[in-house]
């Protein structure tokens, strides 16, 4: 299972002049089990704030987060996260990075290498098993980061613009790979991006946020059949619809 419910989430930060900058304003939505949802919005709309709250890395001022009916407080092993920046531990080899969470759970060496090896295969990097992160390209690093997050078998995978720093080709390739991985592992995925193209290519639903304060502007159901073709007319149509909305939102600002 992996059903996520966000109820009435509020977050604001103090500003220098004493007032508060409202980042998330009474945000509520649900993500169904095994659903792929993209949170889309321009920079500064609170996407990352939202994800950090779900991850339990920050605490919300008000509101609550439920995963399969259980209220989330702090970090929870049921939730995996892939960060925007490179977050692999540079002092650990690829396999030891993937096995890190298992090591923390106290699983013995043989078993954790066995499990980590499977996830290494899943991201097609078996030949880099004993390499250090500094020896990998950006795309490979993020694939290892995905494997590392999956190794603890979370029900929900949070991804914070994980492919944002990559070049376009690598990015497209990793998007396809991620969809394959999702097919195989059946995770619920909440994916943050500012790329409309990426959102339309991957999601079951797209939640568009307005900038400052972050509210839900609209939720798109993407009904396109998979695998999706970026060049198809239908794809272009959905893309245009989403883009129009985002342009509207930013012109109001």
């Amino acid at each position, binding site marked *: 299972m992996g059903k996520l419910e966000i109820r009435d989430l509020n977050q604001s930060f103090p500003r220098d002049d004493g007032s508060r900058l409202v980042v998330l304003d009474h945000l509520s939505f649900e993500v169904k089990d095994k659903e792929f949802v993209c949170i889309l919005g321009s920079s500064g709309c609170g996407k990352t704030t939202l994800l950090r709250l779900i991850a339990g*890395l920050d605490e919300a001022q008000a509101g609550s987060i439920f995963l399969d009916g259980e209220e989330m407080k702090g*970090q929870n092993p049921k939730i995996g*996260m892939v960060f925007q920046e490179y977050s692999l531990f*540079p002092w650990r080899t690829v396999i030891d990075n993937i096995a*890190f*969470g298992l*090591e923390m759970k106290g699983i013995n060496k043989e078993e954790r290498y066995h499990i980590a090896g499977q996830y290494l295969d899943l991201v097609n990097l078996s030949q880099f098993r004993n390499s*250090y992160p*500094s020896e990998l390209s950006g795309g490979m690093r993020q694939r290892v980061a995905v494997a590392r997050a999956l190794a603890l078998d979370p029900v929900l995978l949070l991804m914070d613009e994980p492919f944002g720093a990559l070049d376009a080709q690598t990015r497209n390739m990793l998007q396809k790979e991620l969809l394959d991985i999702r097919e195989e592992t059946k995770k619920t995925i909440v994916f943050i991006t500012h790329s409309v193209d990426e959102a339309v290519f991957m999601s079951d639903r797209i939640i568009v946020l307005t900038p400052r304060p972050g509210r839900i502007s609209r939720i798109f159901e993407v009904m396109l059949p998979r695998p999706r073709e970026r060049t198809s007319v239908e794809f272009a149509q959905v893309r245009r619809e989403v883009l129009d909305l985002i342009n509207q939102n930013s012109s109001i600002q």
Partner: protein
Amino acid sequence: MEDAVLSRHEQNNNNNLWLGVCAILLGLVLWEVIAAGIIKNPFILPAPTDVFSAFLELLQKGRLLLDFEASLIHFAIGIIAALLVGIPVGIVMGWSRRSDAFLDPVIEILRPIPPLAWIPFAIIWFGLTSHSAGFVIFIGAVFPIIINTYSGFRSVPRIFVEAGKMLGCTKTRDLIRYIAFPAALPSVAAGIRIATGVGWMCLVAAELFGVSNNGLGMALWFYYNLHQMDYVVVYMILLGLTGLFFDMIFRYYIDRHFLKWRIGEVA
């Protein structure tokens, strides 16, 4: 193509090595010419040949090894104590802002006091023992270790800590052991390297006040009083070479084995 580049690179390294050896040989020749040809007074400047025969004499007397052993014991006492105190203090200060605010003023006041100024209290507290020499070396070595451990911990990227938390590493003790310490290790190692250098420099002075009958610094002073300057030079060279040896351990062994992962990052 790549092979050619590589071998040229190696050739350069070899050439540079030879240049270094040439400089040492040239230095020795110059020294011999000045000492034996111009000054002609082994009290003021003993020639390399005098020093070499002094070295052989000292070996025969069996004194060198004893001095060496005594110095290494003093040094080990000082460095080990500095590690045992410096690393935990650096970790605590680097990890918690409150302990930093609490400890920092005391450390900043004690730090500028030259290690040799502690000699009177070293004698009062520890008497004329190896421990008092060790104490002076400790004072010299502990601050670089504290400061580098501290700054290493301060600059652990937040993303590593958060990634660790998401993977079930949530206890402070585990976060320090599995995330912060390895991330700070390059800086900690640099601190230890500086500390061994400073500690070794404190050694001669720490031994001068007569904590034992042996020790490289002690012997150096002893032979100065006998006006056997060729023996003094033997001890000076040994002190230099041993210090160099400690530094080499760091440059080659520690960096290659414990900080292997940084090779790609720095280049």
